[in-house]
């Protein structure tokens, strides 16, 4: 089926939708039918293609022919000339050569990718990351050259500011502004850091970007260094990512050899070098000041701000820290321009965001979508929905710092502010889909366990408070919850949020608070009715043997407490007083004769 002769991609972004993309699609189908091409041409719609000014956009592959300002009236001509006579319709052709478009030449016909917009990931999956030549062929280092040739440092920062790029690490601070603050400091020595200490469980955007396209990150960093006047930069990367480290090392060596790094870059007189620093397994080092301490050779414990790193950062010098995805956006902003970049996304959140889509979803993987895409679009249009016809329960964004949003928030637009308003956060881009088989109390416990384990231990609310919250949650999932536990969780959670020293502590209670807000009933069931509706919390499950039992005795043999009785070939019975709810019988039974409640 997918191996068609032609693939027509119709842009279905908000702007093109207004230009009747749906109607045009219908006309195309009719026209293809007329021309007898219905099974030779696939028509798909994609998310915003980033050429809104010239919408409606249509792309015909192979050949990557872009038509702009397409209306219903143009369709017969396109079918006739392009598809039948293989001659593009010249009057509709537009010349747009955005960096990100390359990806679509290879992947544009796949639904999963068609709905995405790949800026940071534009080269991931279409080039050899260990070959700088392929990067150069994809206009690599041209943005750097442009900056060095025709832009003053202040203009670079201004361009990034104008683009509206906000930090992709989670907090969403305007990147250009951060650069300006740092550039403004009088100290002649400044540093620049790429935060690649990706720690969210279930998120691997940074790893993929560095493994798939390391030069983009390097190029972004050099441009940033030029803007703020830094001579030295660091990539702080997880030691758990050996392949990414290897590729980055290779890319740095290649960039140095080609003269993109080091002294007197491309003859411009500007010098900058990058060093790799390995993390050592501490989630909190994603926090700026903790990361700085780690590079300085200390325990990764955050310190109070102000002073901000922009004023006093690494070794006490003004320092810019951005994460991998932020840096990867920079060359695109420079080459395609702030105006173009800021045309993508919502009013306050510009550009795209990469998410690691995982959990109970058909298409797991990395997706990059324009800001403003709804959760529903990601989960159902790109992710393909929930497998095995299970019911959607919640989507968790922002990793251990984020929150769980139930169905009623599915139409929330993805941007910093809307997600925050809904009670979650953008975070660095973890997105976990949760179905009816998952218990929300247990999910909250999982995330809190993580943050509690990763707490650096410096400030009291986070160190002691998350421990107590975890104890209460554990108690609830074991069926020992008592009246008032929910209120205690809320009291502690709100206090920890407002009083902790760093972002880790301030966001640690989010998974708990958001599940209490949206799934309070489940908590109450656990506590009052001692019931876990998803059947996840072992302490709350009861196992019973139903009429399907053939009396094979398998369950009886595995039961560690001899709680199962029954003679051969008769229906067995579980003595609930003896049952320790280990689930062995349930796993052993081959006849679905044991039910879990």
């Amino acid at each position: 089926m997918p191996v068609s002769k032609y693939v027509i991609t119709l842009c279905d972004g908000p702007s093109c939708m207004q230009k009747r993309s749906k109607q045009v699609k219908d006309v195309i189908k009719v026209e293809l039918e007329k021309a007898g091409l219905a099974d030779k041409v696939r028509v798909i719609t994609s998310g915003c293609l980033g050429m809104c000014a010239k919408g409606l956009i249509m792309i015909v592959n192979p050949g990557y022919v872009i038509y702009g300002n397409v209306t219903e009236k143009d369709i017969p001509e396109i079918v006739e000339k392009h598809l039948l006579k293989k001659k593009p319709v010249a009057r509709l052709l537009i010349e747009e050569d955005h960096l990100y478009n390359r990806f679509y030449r290879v992947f544009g016909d796949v639904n999963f990718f068609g709905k995405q917009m790949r800026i940071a990931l534009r080269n991931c999956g279409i080039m050899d990351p260990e070959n700088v030549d392929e990067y150069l062929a994809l206009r690599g280092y041209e943005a750097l050259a442009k900056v060095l040739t025709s832009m003053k440092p202040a203009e670079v920062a201004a361009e990034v500011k104008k683009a509206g790029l906000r930090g992709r690490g989670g907090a969403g601070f305007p990147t250009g502004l951060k650069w300006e603050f740092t550039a403004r400091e009088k100290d002649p020595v400044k540093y620049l850091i790429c935060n690649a200490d990706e720690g969210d469980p279930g998120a691997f955007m940074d790893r993929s970007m560095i493994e798939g396209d390391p030069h983009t990150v390097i190029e972004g960093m050099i441009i940033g260094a030029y803007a703020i006047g830094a001579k030295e930069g660091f990539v702080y990367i997880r030691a758990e990512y050996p392949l990414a480290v290897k590729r980055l090392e290779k890319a740095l060596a290649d960039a140095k050899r080609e003269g993109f790094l080091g002294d007197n870059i491309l003859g411009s007189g500007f010098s900058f070098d990058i060093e790799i620093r390995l993390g050592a397994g501490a989630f909190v080092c994603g926090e700026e000041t903790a990361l700085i301490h780690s590079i300085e050779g200390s325990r990764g414990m955050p310190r109070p701000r102000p002073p901000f790193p922009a004023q006093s950062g690494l070794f006490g010098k003004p320092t810019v820290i951005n994460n991998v995805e932020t840096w990867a956006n920079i060359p695109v902003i420079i080459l395609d321009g702030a105006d173009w970049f800021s045309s993508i996304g919502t009013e306050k959140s510009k550009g795209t965001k990469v998410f690691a889509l995982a959990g109970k979803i058909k298409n797991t993987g990395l997706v990059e979508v324009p800001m403003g895409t709804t959760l529903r679009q990601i989960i159902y249009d790109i992710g393909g929905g929930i497998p095995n016809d299970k019911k959607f329960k919640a989507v968790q964004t922002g990793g251990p710092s984020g929150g769980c949003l139930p169905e009623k928030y599915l139409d929330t637009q993805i941007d910093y502010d809307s997600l925050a308003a809904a009670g979650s956060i953008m975070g660095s881009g973890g997105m976990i889909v949760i179905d009816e088989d998952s218990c929300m109390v247990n999910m909250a416990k999982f995330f809190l366990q993580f943050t509690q384990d990763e707490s650096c231990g410096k400030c009291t609310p986070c160190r002691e408070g998350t421990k107590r919250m975890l104890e209460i949650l554990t108690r609830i999932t074991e069926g020992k919850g008592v009246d008032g536990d929910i209120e205690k969780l809320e009291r502690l959670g709100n206090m920890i949020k407002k009083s902790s020293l760093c972002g880790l502590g301030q966001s640690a209670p989010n998974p708990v608070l958001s599940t209490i807000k949206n799934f309070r009933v489940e908590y109450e069931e656990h506590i009052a009715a001692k019931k876990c509706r998803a059947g996840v919390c072992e302490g709350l499950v009861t196992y019973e043997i139903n009429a399907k039992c053939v009396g094979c005795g398998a369950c009886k043999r595995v039961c560690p407490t001899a709680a199962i009785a029954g003679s051969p070939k008769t229906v067995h019975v579980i003595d609930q007083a003896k049952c320790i709810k280990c689930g062995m019988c349930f796993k052993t039974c081959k006849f679905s004769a044991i039910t879990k409640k």
Partner: protein
Amino acid sequence: MVTPLDIVKKKRAEAINRIVGKGYLSTKRVYVGMATCEIAAGSKEVMEVFQNAAKQGLTDVYLSQKGCAGRCNLEPTVEVVEEGKIPVKYGKVTPEMAAKIIERHLKNGEVIKEWVIN
């Protein structure tokens, strides 16, 4: 005066020349996913099949690796890009499948539809 932009443009031309010389824009290109996740799913073994084929005379194909495109549940992935045709993306490729892709697709031009990612 030579500007940085001039230098990069020259470098780009040289780079393209170099990889074209190795077959970069040749009619058939094969990309095998080689990110951590892909390798975990078994892409190294798949890559070896292609490498061996290249050694044994599959010369009109440009074989290269690529990073993760993000299709985690379909890894390892292999793309076959042919000039003038829609690129073909294979998912969950095993070494056995790789051998068949070489035989049927690369040598005989037959797209193996049931393995193609949608």
